[in-house]
Each structure stands twice: as C-alpha cells, then as structure tokens.
C-alpha cells in the first residue's frame, strides 16, 4: 500500500514536472495564427486552474480586497489562501510525512463532506467522545461540512490535497478548541492556526479581520484570545497531522491532552446559523420525495 502511494506520488510529481517543462511555453490560436503565452497550462487534477505569477499576484490582491469587503465570499478567502500559500504547503506536507498519523492521512487522502461523514452514526456515539462532540458542535452552530470550496490554484496535486485537508479540518479545530463560528472566535482560531500551521492566509485574516470588530470585541480578542492562541497553538502538535476520522470514538478530553490543547476563555454562543437547517431540509427533500 505504501509502495503504491509512493509510486503514485512520484508519478504526480513527474507529470507536473513534465507539464511544467514542456508546456511552460504554450501556444494559443488567435486571429493571427499562434501566439506565445507563458504559463503552465495542463491541469494537474480536476478543477485545477493553472495561473502564471502575474495572475497569481492579481488574484491574491483581488481576493484579499474582496474577502475584506464581503467576508461571506468563502471562495475568495479560499483563493486568497491558495495564492498566498507559497512554501508553507510543502512545509506542512513534510510535517505530515514526519508523523505516522500524518503519513496515513496523505496515503488515504480522506475528504470531509456530508457524503463521507455519517452524521447519524456519529450522533449515536456516547457522550464525551470526539464524534459526538463534533456533531453537537455542528448542530449548535448550524453549519455543515459541505461548505468548503475545492482547491483550484495549487499546481502540485499532493499540495492541493494538503490545502484541501486544511480547509476541511477547520471545523474540527473549532470543535476541539470549543469555539463557535462568530467573527471573534473565527479570528481567535485564525491566530491559533497561524501559530500552529504557519499558513500566510491565517496571518492575513488575523491581521485584517479585527478591522471588522468593534473596539470592545477587539479588546477582548487581543487581551484574552490571542495569548491563548499563541500559547496553545505554539505548544500543541501540528494539527494537520491528525487523522480526525479515526478518532471518533476517543474521549475528547484524552484527544485534547494528547494534542496539547486546552480551552480558550468562554466564547459567546449565539443562535445556530440557518445553513445546517437548509442543508438538512435539502437532504430530506432529495432522499425522500414520496414522504408526506
């Protein structure tokens, strides 16, 4: 199994390298015959949109502005993360390779969405387990695991998976740190993620996100949550290496102790968002059209 995954990774790398070398100068048909465009152009995986350095920079700047202007544009925050990732993704991939659990994640490449996570099964786990805590957290906040944009702008397929994994595990970090989904908790978690994982997008969000808070919330963020984030995130194990899907039945306090995480100051939990309810309604309508 390991040999196969190693070969697969090698062929991925070889394919990207070949496509880079041979198609770095790409000829495109125009009114005049062919014109030269400099970019790596063969998509390396489904949904891959290769960008050259100028497009990457432009998208980074544009998505930064748009994320600040309209934080509900999840696709813009995703694009910002991918265009600014740079060397942080290989570093995370190497961190995963250093631990046995991380290697297993890279080999299995588990995805987190409502097809792969059986919410009903998780709800039946005993109280105090990670699986039960996760489902409870999802319902309490009113979110589903389906709202993550796929990766488009990372050229290497394995690094694209690392990015996708980071994005999909964000909710697990919420759960393990016991934080809701309001703006100040998201920012606290962004500080935590930056210290723990080192992604530039976490730093950018942490730097500019507080502009959207009023001064009282900002004060609370910087006086209580940021010290927690720095201390806890810095000393905890790198969370990208955790195979969350194999820990459903473990006691959540044990998991937290193993990872080196302790609770932040008590957060403000508000009414659940309507996302989860809408998604559950949609699921019910799709799966049981003949009922009632």
């Amino acid at each position: 199994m390991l040999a196969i995954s190693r070969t697969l990774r090698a062929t991925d790398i070889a394919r990207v390298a070949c496509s880079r070398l041979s198609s770095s100068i790409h000829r495109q048909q125009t009114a005049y015959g062919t014109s030269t465009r400099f970019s790596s152009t063969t998509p390396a995986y489904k949904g891959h949109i290769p960008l050259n350095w100028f497009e990457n920079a432009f998208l980074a700047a544009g998505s930064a502005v748009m994320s600040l202007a309209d934080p509900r544009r999840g696709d813009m925050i995703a694009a910002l993360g991918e265009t600014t990732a740079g060397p942080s993704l290989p570093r995370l991939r190497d961190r995963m390779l250093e631990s046995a659990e991380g290697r297993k994640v890279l080999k299995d490449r588990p995805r987190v969405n409502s097809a792969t996570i059986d919410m009903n099964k998780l709800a039946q786990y005993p109280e105090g387990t990670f699986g039960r805590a996760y489902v409870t957290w999802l319902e309490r906040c009113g979110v589903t695991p389906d709202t993550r944009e796929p990766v488009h702008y990372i050229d290497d397929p394995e690094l694209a998976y690392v990015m996708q994994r980071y994005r999909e595990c964000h909710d697990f970090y919420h759960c393990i740190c016991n934080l809701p989904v309001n703006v100040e908790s998201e920012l606290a978690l962004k500080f935590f993620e930056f210290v723990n994982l080192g992604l530039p997008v976490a730093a950018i969000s942490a730097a500019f996100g507080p502009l959207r808070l009023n001064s009282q919330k900002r004060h609370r963020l910087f006086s209580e949550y940021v010290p927690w984030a720095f201390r806890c995130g810095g000393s905890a194990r790198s969370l990208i290496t955790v195979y969350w899907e194999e820990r459903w039945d473990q006691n959540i306090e044990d998991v937290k102790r193993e990872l080196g995480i302790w609770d932040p100051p008590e957060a403000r939990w508000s009414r659940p968002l309507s996302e989860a309810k809408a998604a559950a309604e949609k699921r019910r309508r799709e799966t049981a059209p003949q009922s009632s």
Partner: protein
Amino acid sequence: MLSLSRSLRSSLPKAARLNCPRYITTQSSSTTPSSSETTTSRTASFGFKTVPEESKESLVKDVFDSVASSYDLMNDATSLGVHRLWKDSYVSALKPGRKGPMRCIDVAGGTGDIALRILDYARENYADRETSVAVVDINAQMLKEGFRRFKKTMYHNTPQISFHEANAQALPSEVFPDNTFDLYTIAFGIRNCTSIPSVLEEAHRVLKPGGTFACLEFSRVNNPLLSTLYDQYSFTMIPLLGTILAGDRDSYQYLVESIRKFPPQPEFAKMIREAGFATGDDVDGGAWQDMWGGIACVHKGVKL
C-alpha cells in the same frame, strides 16, 4: 503537451493547431455530451468547444442566468468603462428620431443599455417622445434586470418601452409582424446566437423597407501589437475579474472565447448582404466601422 517546432507546426492543418489545454477547465465544468456521440446532428461553437447545436442555446442561457445580476458591474470592470463610450457612439451614429418617431427593436438587449440610449437620444435631440423600443431577449433574468433599470427612468409604464422574451432566430410573428420596425439593433448579443444567418433573416423580415440593421459586436483586431495586448488582457484578466467580482470564472471564459470564434468583419458583412441587406464596401468605414482598432465594431445594413 509537446511543443512542436515551428516548421512542423505550420505544416499541420489549421484545425489541428487549435488546441488550448489551458482552457480545459471549461470542458471539465460543463455537462455537454461530446460531439462524437451525435455525429449526425449539426454542431455549434461554445467558446473554443464544439457542442451539438441544440445544446448551445441552453448553455448560453446558463451563462447569462449566472451573469445577469452583476452584468453591468462586470461590463464596467472588464472594459474599464469603455463599453459606455462604444454604446454612446453606436447610438449617436444611428441618430434615432432624426426623421421623426421611430419604431425600434433592440434584440439581445436584456439589461436595456441600448434601448435607454435610443430613447434618451430621441428625447434630448429631437424632443421626441413617440419613438418606441421593444426590448427582446431570450433570457428572462436579463430582461428582469432591464425592467428594473427602466423602472428608475421616466419611460417606465409608457408605450415607449416594452419587454419581450423571445428567440432572435424565431421572433413570433404575432408580436413582431413583417415590415414593422424602422431600426433593428443588436449589441454584444449576436455572437451568442446559435445561427447567425437565422438572426439576420429575422431582422430582414421585421424591418420595413428602408429600415436599418445595426449590430455592435466584438470583432477582429488587425493590428498585431494591439491584438497581442488585447489577447493577454482577455484571457488573463477577464476570467480573473469574473472570479473575483462575480465568483464565476467559467462564464467569463466562455465570453472571451466566443469573441474569438465570431467571424471577422468582411465575413460578417458578407453574411449581412446574404440576408438581403444593402451594405457599404468591404472596408473599414463602409460596411462596418471599427472602434478601438476592431475591439468593437458596428456593422450596418439597410433593407431595400
């Protein structure tokens, strides 16, 4: 994707050279069947892809359903506001209302840019409040945007403006009888139609003898330097602006590709003549008038 040497590349037939793996992303995201499955049916171009003729209409509908709400914003962003100059120039050259009140039909005119300019021009220059424009579009979402825009003007609820959902290739004859209109305009819409000759035939049918057909469309840029810059801008910036502002890369990728697939100026002028219109000579300033080096172009014809 191997890069072939220049001599080998030039010896290949032109069709084989038209491959753009960069734009494979539009293929993977679309749900069209491959044209090899339906070899007997006719095909049309959807950007750089080839699709069965029947599907083009629904694919274009999806594109415009998606872009309708941010259409005007995206026009301003991608053309840096220049589209306003082109449309102003287009309508001013037509001088609607000069010879008295006109009945105009603006096809693919969803958001009402041209219709509004026609009515304003007639009102401001000739004190004409009898000229009317029928806005026709195949896409209901675009018409809704147009209706909303006209609600903010003085023409709302007057006989000067009406909105119709119809296919430019087959205008219903109960609503649009033969020999009805003095002016037929179509701005930035004809390249999205499946069969350009059908649109031209319908235009010929509904126009009165002596009526004018005027088409504003993106066209071929002949200057090599401008063409290179324009291509770079189109294929780099426009899909990115679509991603950032509208969250929709694929629709804008289709739009820039469809511009490249549109016939060049002399060919389109020929198609207009074949539909029965009289045009000027096949030069810039004759049958067509280039704007900004050919980025946009106005083709005119008169029904005899």
